[in-house]
């Protein structure tokens, strides 16, 4: 792989040898995938700040200042959510960034997560939604089709945003849509959650599930703009939780149990190619075996991920990059929905929605009051 950023992330000492030209490129690549602050954290860990030229260093520091602040506000938001949802009397499970931040796990340092994700049992979603609405969390989707789409097919409520603090919240009932080609059992995931110290009733996924979820999110997603950053999350979780043969064994068998062998294999493979993660050869082999992919399928995947995982920056572009990104985008839809659902959905998005938008622009709809929204919500709940 040919990416300066990946090289420096995997061996931070290389940063001491860079010319200003290389620093210029490194900062550009890191900014493109939102890894400036992460790079700063790596350099702090390796005690290298003293040997970094001040001009590029300040970009890393600026970004790190932002993440520090972000971290505080995520923890406050989660505490607030825990109290808002306490009457549900179930554990509040935080996912991804919110979990890393609250539990102070390794991927959190120098990392911004744009939204807060929580996981609740499906049956409680309507109640949770009205509790949240009362505390100022409003749905982001104004379009009735989108509302229906999320509620019927997706693994989460339509995204919500807090009216005052503008934080984004995704309330999940599963880690993949029910229409996806695999659907890991939420019951199984919820049966092994771990309490987060110092935050009453707030939980995270167990170690193996953290890794699997992070990998799933990356390798099922079409939005690959920050793929390298997301891969580094997995890498950092792997190095924290997988040391002994038993650890690896547990990870592989959990992958099989949750039907996530395929994202697991690619996460392991690419963590070792991009970041030099030390993954025992038998583990990698076994993990590939579990996916039951044909050789041709593997070659195709390698073609798209070799390119799609690199920063979307001119310096990392190679022949086929644009095609690979497009294929990944198409593939992510196909993975989430079978064709007989996908085609009408895309048709709506590309034809009906633009017309609707155009019409709304010429006569904008009246804004609704909070009371009206509450009334609507109550009828939906019933």
């Amino acid at each position: 792989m040919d990416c300066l950023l990946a090289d420096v992330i995997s061996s931070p000492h290389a940063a001491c040898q860079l010319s200003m030209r290389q620093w210029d490129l490194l900062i550009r690549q890191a900014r493109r995938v939102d890894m400036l602050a992460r790079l700063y954290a790596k350099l702090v860990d390796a005690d290298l700040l003293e040997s970094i030229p001040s001009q590029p260093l300040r970009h890393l520091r600026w970004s790190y200042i932002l993440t520090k602040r972000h971290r505080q506000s995520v923890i406050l938001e989660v505490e607030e959510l825990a109290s808002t949802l306490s009457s549900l009397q179930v554990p509040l499970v935080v996912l991804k960034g919110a979990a890393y931040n609250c539990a102070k796990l390794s991927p959190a340092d120098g990392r911004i997560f744009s939204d807060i994700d929580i996981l609740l049992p499906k049956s409680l979603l309507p109640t949770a939604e009205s509790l949240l609405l009362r505390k100022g969390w409003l749905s982001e989707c104004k379009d009735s089709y989108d509302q229906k789409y999320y509620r019927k097919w997706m693994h989460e409520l339509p995204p919500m945003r807090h009216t005052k603090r503008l934080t984004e919240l995704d309330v999940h009932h599963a880690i993949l849509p029910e229409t996806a080609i695999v659907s890991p059992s939420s019951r199984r995931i919820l049966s092994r959650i771990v309490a987060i110290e110092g935050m009453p009733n707030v939980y995270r996924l167990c170690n193996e599930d953290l890794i699997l979820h992070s990998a799933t999110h990356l390798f099922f997603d079409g939005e690959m703009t920050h793929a390298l950053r997301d891969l580094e999350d997995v890498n950092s979780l792997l190095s924290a939780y997988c040391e002994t043969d038993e650890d690896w064994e547990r990870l592989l068998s959990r992958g099989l149990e949750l039907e996530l062998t395929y994202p697991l294999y690619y996460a392991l493979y690419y963590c070792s190619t991009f970041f030099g993660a030390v993954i025992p050869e038998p583990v990698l082999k076994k993990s590939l075996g579990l996916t039951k992919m044909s050789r041709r399928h593997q070659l195709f995947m390698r073609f798209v991920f070799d390119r799609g995982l690199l920063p979307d920056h001119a310096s990392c572009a190679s022949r086929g990059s644009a095609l690979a990104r497009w294929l990944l985008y198409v593939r992510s839809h196909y993975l989430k929905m079978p064709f007989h659902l996908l085609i009408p959905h895309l048709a709506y998005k590309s034809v009906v929605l633009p017309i609707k938008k155009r019409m709304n622009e010429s006569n904008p709809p009246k804004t609704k009051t909070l009371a009206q929204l509450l009334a609507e919500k109550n009828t939906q709940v019933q």
Partner: protein
Amino acid sequence: MREMRYPYDRSISQREPNLHAFPSALSLKFGPLSVSVSSNSSKTLDCIRQLYADYPENESDFFDFHVSIDSAQGIRRWYKPQINFSLDGFKPFKPLPGDQALPLFEWGMNWCVSNHCHDYLVVHAAVVEKQGRVLMLSAPPGAGKSTLCAGLVCRGWRLLSDELALVSMSDDGLVQVTPLGRPVCLKNQSLGVIRSFSQDSRFGPVCYDTVKGDVAHMLAPKESIDRSQELAQLSWVVFPRYAPQAKSVLSPQGKAQSLLNLAKQSFNLNVLGEMGYRLLNQSITQSDCYDFQYSSLDDAVKLFDSLLHVPDTGKN
């Protein structure tokens, strides 16, 4: 300012960067920042060159920001042409009509500064300096801040910044302002006002019908550009308001209210958290704070010049 060719030499990456994205670029440096500007339209670069002719080139191989102002391709080349601002491929704004490249560049640079430079408290304010003492003019858009700033600059005050004040703490615990020294953005009637106020003022091209009305940029005086590495201490915080026909009145403003006003005009106070508050607090503590109502630039300049005779009391 220097012209250069992309790409950087090939040794940095074994793979050749995509040449077509960056046909040619300008290298410029203002205040603490260096910027490389590229565009697929030579007309756009020419416009920017007009505004930035006096600025030094960046001597380092490292640029703080690589921005581009590209005309949209495809059907938009002929039908209602559009332009995009991007920071290294990231587009923070929606496209603007094709003839607004210059305002877009300036707004884009403001965005770069206020969203990245978190070593400073970035305040929405014009800043000028005379005899080592800094006057900060902070106000919401449309209050006449830039016009006043341009007027003062035409009468010998040094331009530090027209739009963004970079506030930081010096080693002795006093607040200082770092110059940016970029052109002053003037709107609508202000253009005529400043043109007739000073025959020496130089302007870039006028852009008509932008979201902020007709916009043009007054070039920064050569002296301000040359001294853009000189920081200076904050002495006055003034909240100006243009009121037609009104007498020019400078009335003292309470420190608590001034702090709240300035907080409202800060871009990254929430990002800096405690440090931001300390900077804000010290800014107000060491400065004399005023509300300022004005209609005549001549009176305004006289008033602020007279402040220079009052000894600096704010410093501890």
